[in-house]
């Protein structure tokens, strides 16, 4: 027993040290003062603005289109349901480089929709819009998956109760379903925001790495690290801080959700034969 305890303890120690070391190393090289100083570096500042703007717009698109999609997938069963769910989850496992190629093949000048887009006077690749599209494509599954789970976890009896109390489907959604699922939705948003902020592969293929236009924080790290390692470290530091904040927010969101759903539940809506 003692040997077992020792071995597990040792293995856990090694694993945790391994996970912590890169983070510690980044901050060992960059003092907080240097970190803040680097924020005035035009490369860093531009990348920060591009990242924030594209990620924010991508998140908005993800929420506006992903929420109804998740609600539909959570509450309806139809032919091809599994196919739709697979499609939603695919970007999660797809190598980002493949996502980038796919986006080019779809929206590029010679792509599937390229002709249509250029007829409308729109050229997507290597623009800031392209960054947004790439981020939305890669980050959306994290939100949609979490949202499906959140909607599935809300008691269908409560939606039924709302309907019998005179609320139509829309009022039921906004006054009952959405407030009950909000913790899960917030958690999904935090996850997909973090993923979007770190997007690299699909972005560099579909949007390139142009300072002030398409160069996001991860792309700036890549561009800087063989010219000015310190700047690369500082940008990394910024991203670590943002990621930690996101994780904290995620935990908060999840505990919010679970403390709310510990109330009356019933199998009323699940069974039609009782």
């Amino acid at each position, binding site marked *: 027993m003692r040997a077992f305890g020792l071995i597990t303890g040792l293995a856990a120690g090694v694993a945790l040290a391994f996970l912590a070391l890169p983070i510690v190393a980044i901050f060992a090289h960059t003092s907080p003062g240097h970190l803040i100083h680097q924020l005035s570096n035009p490369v860093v500042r531009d990348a920060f603005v591009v990242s924030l703007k594209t990620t924010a717009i991508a998140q908005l698109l993800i929420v506006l289109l992903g929420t109804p999609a998740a609600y539909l997938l959570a509450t309806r069963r139809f032919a091809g349901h599994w196919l739709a769910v697979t499609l939603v989850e695919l970007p999660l496992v797809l190598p980002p480089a493949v996502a980038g190629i796919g986006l080019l093949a779809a929206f590029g000048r010679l792509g599937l929709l390229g002709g249509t887009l250029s007829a409308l006077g729109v050229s997507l690749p290597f623009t800031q819009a392209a960054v947004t599209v790439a981020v939305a494509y890669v980050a959306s599954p994290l939100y949609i998956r979490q949202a499906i789970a959140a909607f599935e976890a809300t*008691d269908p009896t409560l939606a*039924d109760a709302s309907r019998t109390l005179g609320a*139509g489907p829309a009022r039921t959604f906004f006054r*009952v379903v959405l407030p009950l699922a909000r913790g899960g939705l917030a958690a999904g948003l935090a996850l997909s925001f973090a993923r979007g902020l770190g997007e690299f592969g699909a972005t560099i293929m579909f949007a390139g790495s142009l300072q002030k236009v398409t160069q996001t924080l991860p792309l700036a790290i890549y561009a800087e690290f063989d010219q000015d390692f310190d700047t690369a470290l500082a940008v990394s530091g910024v991203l670590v801080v943002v990621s930690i904040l996101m994780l904290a927010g995620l935990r908060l969101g999840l505990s919010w959700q679970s403390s709310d759903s510990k*109330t009356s539940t019933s199998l009323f809506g699940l069974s039609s034969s*009782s």
Partner: protein
Amino acid sequence: MAELRLEDVNLPLRAFQLELTLAVGATVALVGPSGAGKTSVLRSVAGLARPARGRIGVDGDVWFDAGRVDVPPDRRRVGLVFQEYALFPHLTVRQNVEFGGKRLAGELLERFRISRLAGQRPGKLSGGERQRVALARALAREPQVLLLDEPLSALDAHTKTTVRAELQELLHGLELPVLLVTHDFEDAAALAGQVSVLVDGKLRQSGSPAELVARPADGFVASFTGANLLHGHADGSTRVRLADGTVLAVAEPASGDVVLAVYPWDVTVGVEPPHDSALNVVAGPIRTISELGNRVRVTIGPVSAEITAESLRRLGLRTGQPAFAAFKATGTRVVAVPHSGTVS
């Protein structure tokens, strides 16, 4: 008073078809074992389930007419109280009630004595309080019919008696058709003037609680209303022979395999055989003695008798002791031939 009508309603469920015609004027209790389709009836009336055939309406309003009319749940004025009450956990008691309608909310909070809880979330309430909130919310909707799904099953035995009395009072004062669902005959008898027994999606019998007890249509209804069921064989006379050889007298002649219903409150218990030879007697050791408040159930052979706690002490009855259960021939009803009905 308005009338809720279900005509030829036919709803396919997993194991069977629900087929029902029912008119609800005052309070009707739909009783039956779990899985009989009771809740599905309420869901059909509320618009949460769509029957394959039939019509559902209240007075002049048609809510459902298969293939022609299907009014969505939010446009049917139905007050549905769900089994576990389905209160919105993220809203306060007041917001829950106001969700049904603002006009009567204040008055209903007063009437159901939940004003002092108005600012609380449902998670903090007791079972009885939750039920009052659920009722207030359903009535705030100003419904044309009130539907109650197992209104007492979520409560513990102690709370149940109080809440049942409250509910009884409320239902008497309501000028609404009320359809309530329960698996407990005693609750149904306490709350409703008419009891309809639903088994496997079909109505077995409808009538006042007293009628169901006096003239149960079959063995199921008899056992549901609390009767002892005795299986035996008759040969055209008024005498029925049980499997153990005991011969019992019945009121009307019967033949073949029969089921007899005897109510526990019609049975007396003694330690000596009764002198009156006109009585039916079952003899044997006392199998169980269980006390239910002031009443005691004593089981001798296949027969349970209900006696007072006082009689139990006076007779000094103990489990295992030889005793005699006696009951009149007029209280021994022939209710069904076992193979002709589907007694479940």
